[in-house]
């Protein structure tokens, strides 16, 4: 992965296309993964569009980034987090009739998933689906903290900066999230043990 240096960011701020490309290249996998895991499998079809919207927001505001105040990746994750929350807020504003569409979409999504991941056995698919469903039951704040910590391996300070809360709150949200997931995934944990 290309290291995102201050110089690279400064060149991107000046409109350098190669620098912009290097940044997208370096960050597109974690951005897509975070958006997907936060929003859930029902958004699979739109996931690349949503990730692209995140990058558009990042580059519209890149002039305002100050390397003395935050790491660039931490700054980008604040856009990921805010965009995910915005997407869910907009979905809540939709009429309830769309829930049926979501269910249909989810069923089609799992069909697509089987096609795209033929090497995974059905048990793993089932486990992945179950983890996704368990994550979806968490509150949005807990879910975001959990994803940033467990999947993106960010430290508590970075997560606190991204979510706008103190480190103690980050820890307590993470604890509650993991406790909830452990209970929901207990059958799979026992089978694995």
């Amino acid at each position, binding site marked *: 992965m290309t290291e995102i240096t201050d110089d690279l960011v400064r060149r991107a701020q000046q409109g350098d296309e190669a620098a912009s490309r290097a940044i997208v290249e370096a960050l597109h996998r974690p951005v*897509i993964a975070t958006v997907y895991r936060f929003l859930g499998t029902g958004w699979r079809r739109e996931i690349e569009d949503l990730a692209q919207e995140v*990058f558009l927001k990042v580059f*519209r505001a890149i002039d305002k980034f100050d390397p003395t105040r935050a790491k660039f990746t931490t700054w980008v994750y604040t856009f990921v987090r805010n965009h995910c929350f915005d997407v869910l807020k907009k979905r809540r504003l939709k009429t309830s009739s769309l829930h049926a569409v979501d269910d249909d979409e989810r069923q089609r999504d799992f069909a697509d998933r089987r096609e795209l991941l033929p090497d995974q056995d059905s048990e793993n698919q089932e486990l992945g689906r179950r983890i996704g469903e368990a994550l979806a039951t968490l509150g949005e704040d807990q879910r975001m903290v959990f994803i940033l910590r467990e999947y993106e391996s960010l430290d508590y300070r970075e997560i606190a900066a991204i979510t706008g809360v103190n480190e103690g709150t980050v820890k307590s949200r993470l604890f509650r999230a993991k406790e909830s997931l452990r209970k929901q995934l207990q059958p799979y944990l026992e089978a694995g043990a």
Partner: protein
Amino acid sequence: MSPHDDHGPAGDGPLGEHGFPGEADWLDLPMPELPEGPLAPEGAAADAGVDDFVSRVLRARDEDRQLDAGLARLDQELPKALLQHFAPPPIGDDFVESAVAAIQLDRQRRWRALLARYVAPEPSPEFVNRTLDALFDADAAAAVRAEGAGIHGKGIRRVDGAAGTGDGLPRPLAWQADDGPVARRAPRASRWLWPLAAAAAVAAAVLWSRPSHRPPFELQVALGTPADRAWADAVSPLPTVLAAVASAEDSDALFDVPVAGLWLAAATESGR
């Protein structure tokens, strides 16, 4: 009374005028007044503030330790390897290319929108009419309009509404030729209008043909206009020119109305 009251109000203690205390004095600093904490039991004495503060700090520390221990336990029970089964979908090969293209296009659009604020488009017919109404003698202009008369068989009329040149752009001039019914003698107004127009054309041709080392007209206006009389969102340099002319006549005039000649039209109306 608290045992710390001997030191008087805040700022009069051992800190004195020296600011930060020395290392030896640090442990003897007076206790400031603390708000009653959420953990303090009801009816607790006011001088229990120190104990309350200490207990809160210790409790917070204990909670933090408990959280760390609980998280460590859950790390064992909920291993990351298991969580990795919830994997994101494969990413399209063209994602980076399309994202960079979208970013560049977005950047171009925003720059274009920004620059468009400083590019003067063709003035609208309404603007031209209002400006001419204000510039020409009101009576003469009214006479010309009332006559609707032609010059050598051609009528003169103002631009109507969104009349354009056929290519989607409004005509740059307010006057346009129209076929008159019959050839008539030129009216009184046109007798001085034509020589004036001819003289203006000759002067323009002379000026145009001279080798020029002067900057473009818009730049001259921009450089010569005080900042407080120029509008960044003006659709044309003409309002700025007119404002500069009017300013020469009345240096105290304030031009705080929108562009597009409204202020000039209003001034003419009030002068009629």
